[in-house]
């Protein structure tokens, strides 16, 4: 490895690319040779054609809907995630900054933590009805949880000496939150926000499936009901791309924002 470092890295990259292509070739063979029924497993070329058509990449006068669906889902996910991050950090800071509040409220938070976010959908439907705002509420509420708990944890883990320093300097509580609590909780909050984005995507898709809001979740469900397997796979590919891109962006942002932590 040491002698041929750059060449070795290049070979590894090519190797992992080859493995990916081998998997796609396996898919191609399995579907074209009819090992697996095409009702379930469309050929890669059919999936690709559905993607091109749906995203209007084939010509100027096509009327694909996937682009609009993707925008709807991404918009829902991002709005819900931003709301979740905002309220998660605010509530988490309010709870985490005071040991007394923490002692009273944290057991309840721990109890609600394992509750699946999508389990709130029926409740939200009966309160708000079937509308886009309801889905957004559940997305935001479900995604808020990891941020909230991470913020509480980050505030609870402030080095006691720092708290003493703040007391000596007679810092106000707001100054303590801003200058010590938040920077200290930042790694936790960012990790929570990353988890929150994953949850936001999942809940957005489930919400679209149940509440029939236009988006990729509804699109793939309808495609499956109509046995349009290539459209279904196109939707799954797009959802995978959304997940991949959002995760990669956040990992990059996390690295940039936490640069001060690294030695």
């Amino acid at each position, binding site marked *: 490895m040491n002698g041929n470092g750059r060449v070795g890295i290049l070979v*590894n*990259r090519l*190797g*992992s*690319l*080859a*493995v*990916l292509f081998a*998997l796609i070739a396996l898919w191609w063979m399995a579907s074209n040779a009819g090992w697996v029924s095409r*009702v*379930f497993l469309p050929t890669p070329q059919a999936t690709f054609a559905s993607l091109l058509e749906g995203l209007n990449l084939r010509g100027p006068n096509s009327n694909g809907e996937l682009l609009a669906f993707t925008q709807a889902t991404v918009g829902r996910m991002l709005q819900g995630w931003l709301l979740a991050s905002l309220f998660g950090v605010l509530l988490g800071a309010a709870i985490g900054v005071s040991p007394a509040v923490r*002692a*009273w*409220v944290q*057991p*309840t938070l*721990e*109890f*609600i933590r*394992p*509750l*699946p*976010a*999508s*389990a*709130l*959908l*029926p*409740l939200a*439907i*009966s*309160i708000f009805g079937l509308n886009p705002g309801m889905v957004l509420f559940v997305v935001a509420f479900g995604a808020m949880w990891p941020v909230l708990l991470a913020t509480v944890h980050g505030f609870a883990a402030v080095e006691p000496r720092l708290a003493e320093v703040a007391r000596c300097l007679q810092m106000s509580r707001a100054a303590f939150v801003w200058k010590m609590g938040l920077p200290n909780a930042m790694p936790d909050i960012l990790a929570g926000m990353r988890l929150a984005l*994953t949850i936001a*995507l*999942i809940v957005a*898709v*489930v919400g679209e*499936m*149940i509440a029939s809001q236009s988006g*990729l*979740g509804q699109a*793939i*469900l309808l*495609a*499956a*009901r109509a*046995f349009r*397997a290539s459209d*279904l*796979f196109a*939707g*799954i590919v797009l*959802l*995978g791309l959304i*997940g*991949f891109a959002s*995760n990669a962006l956040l990992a990059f942002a996390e690295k940039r924002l936490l640069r001060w932590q690294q030695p």
Partner: protein
Amino acid sequence: MTERRLLRWLRPWVFPALLVGAFEWYARRAAALGSDALAPPSAAARAFMGAALDGSLWQATGFTLGTAALGLLLGAVLGIALGLVLGLSRRAAQLGSLSIEVLRPVPSVALIPLAMLTFGFGVRMELAIVAFATFWPLLVLVQSAVQQIEPRLLEVSRVLGLSARERAFKIVLPAIAARLFVALRLGVAVALVVAVTVEIAANPNGMGYAMMIAQQSFDPALMLAWLGWIGVVGFAVNAGMVLLQRVVARRMGVLP
């Protein structure tokens, strides 16, 4: 002294009691104004007793927990096996990395329609999705656990001339047991959440579906009862895993 202890014991219950009380008041007021979308928690408790007595509660709970457990078993066996391979061989890890990075971010719920198409409704579709969802975290955690094994242990296995199977069962698995348990705990939480989500979105079985059908038939008391029960089951399963993990860690001498 005893007063303090009493206070400490009561403290966690005060906040939820306030929440439930506020909800009771709000739901009763809404009902008085002629809304049938919500029910007070007292009615939910009665609905819960009814479901517990006629057996539908236990049947649905058993379905969800059983399916989640089977799916986790499938996902965990596959994830641990591949994680061992990728953890032991640097070359295999590098070759597989791109494929894993591409496949892992696919949200598990995106496979609900595909599983519906392939398996129809029932145990198998839920099993497949739970297995897919639990496969990735176990793969990643086991791989990183294996990569952090003390290298000397692996040298010992090479010196002793152990076969690959012996190496996996005698050296590697015992060495990663504690971390494996942490990964399994995460897997249990994921499996339960995914199972309930699949039932809410599509599969007409189990706790999620029971809650969904209660909402659709305008029985808000039963819906709230299910919501609370799902919360209790999730909390109990997770708390049980934490306890089990602590016992196992102590047995293995990791914790004092």
